[in-house]
């Protein structure tokens, strides 16, 4: 009983990784990738993971690794951002060959991106958590030419 009380008092540490269902970083050093969810009833492929298939309400999904490269559909440099975010930072919409659009922060200098740039998945800090530690998630960067 008193143990329980103690556990309640101590705040749970905030997350430092976003989000194990969506982003896989292999331990063997292979490149990270995003996970798509293919509905086993209708074949719809979605990202991020839906509660139910939006097409048919199917509940079972096959996990499909998504392409690590895509096209930057649009992008912007943010100079006045969310409370607590260090500025400037850059985010954009990345279109993947699987006919999926992903919103993500970009790794690279503000002013260095333009629409239709070829980009690739990487990982990096996206914000600071409640404990002051960086949260790692997927980001995209320009493919070196």
């Amino acid at each position, binding site marked *: 009983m008193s143990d329980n009380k103690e556990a309640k008092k101590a705040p749970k540490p905030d997350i430092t990784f*976003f989000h194990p269902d969506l982003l896989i970083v292999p331990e063997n050093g292979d490149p990270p990738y995003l996970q798509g969810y293919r509905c086993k009833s209708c074949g719809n492929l*979605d*990202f*991020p993971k839906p509660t139910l298939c*939006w097409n048919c309400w199917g509940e079972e999904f096959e996990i499909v690794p998504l392409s690590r490269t895509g096209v930057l*559909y*649009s*992008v*912007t*440099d*943010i*100079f*006045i*951002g*969310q*409370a607590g*975010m260090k500025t400037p*930072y850059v*985010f*954009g*919409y990345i*279109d993947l060959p699987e*006919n*999926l*659009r992903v*919103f*993500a*922060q970009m790794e690279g200098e*503000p*002013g260095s991106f*333009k*629409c*239709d740039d070829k980009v690739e998945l990487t990982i990096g800090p*996206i*914000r600071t958590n409640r404990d002051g530690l960086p949260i790692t*998630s997927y980001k995209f960067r320009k493919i070196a030419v």
Partner: protein
Amino acid sequence: MKLMRDVYIAGVGETKFGKHSVDYDVLGRAAALEAMRNSNINRPDVVQSAYVGNGMNGIVTGQTVFKDLGMCGRLPIINVESACSAGGMAVYSAIKDVATGVTDISLGVGCENHSLHMQSGTAFAPSMSDIETMHAAVMTGKYAMRANRYMHETGTTIEDLAAITVKNRRHATNNPNAWFKGAITIEEVVNSRMVAYPLTLQQCCGIADGAGAVVVCTKEMAAKLGVQKPVKVAGAVVQSGPYHNRPRDITGDDITETCAEQLYEESGIGPEDVNIVELHDAFTIAELLYYECLGLCKKGDGLKYLRDGDSTYGGKCVVSPRGGMLSYGHPIGASGAAQIAACVKQLRGECQGFQVDPIPRVAMTHVTGGGLSGTEHAACTMHMLVSAW
């Protein structure tokens, strides 16, 4: 919505927009009282239901607005929230009560005070449970991405976008309720502080406080109250934003296009018949895209429409005659109701110093609401208003 019987606007009220040291309830009360007096209502027991739109000021906002008017206990008060669409939705809900016969007279209010409640120097963002918000999305950035794509595809420049601010501030010059108004140059707009490239500070609506209110009723009630210039509600539409996780064209706006199409169909009024529009010009790019989405011009012709002067006084359709959100600022819960109030005043010819000439007969309002990952907006509310005298 299908209007099951005719609904008329009896009266409207609005406060000045800008920074206020009094809270949302004082603002909402002032606008509501003005709207009721404007409808020749001089007692607390006339209005039969009230809807109050508010975004961020807390709970039981409507009851807080009305308790000091002796109205609580006499009518149902329902609080409405859908971020920037809240005020428009409150009026929509009041219209619905009258249209369905639930009441003969109802009141829609939108009110908001941001400056007493918000940390300055930060940008609006949807809730942290949203996957895009987690990745540091802000509303300015989502519009900035639309701007960058539009510029990429059409060759539009930042100077072109800035011309929207210049136009709307000019419209607002003599409007006593507008906040930022008068002459500003393209250079001043472009050289103001960068917020989210290519949107500079002067291309973004200010974070303001204010309120608007609209009394709606049946034809019989309008006559009974002795309303001289009743404005007919020819159409009222609310939509929720469709969700996508697939590539789509963000230089369009699916929810606005759907909403407009429905409004035109239900009202039997086409875009070519609309004389004035107050739309969601929270950012310069938005007004430019909405010329196209609302069918005021063809897809891709937005910039030409602006440059040809079609959207200003003397043009085909005066867009943002009150100065729009770029002049009023945008208290999110208030704007939708205030747009309707401003349009009614134009239709009634009460806008000395900024009256559209000839006096318009048909006005349209458009307000979107809220960010949510995978949608352009979480909500959209539109109204079509016609002179009925």
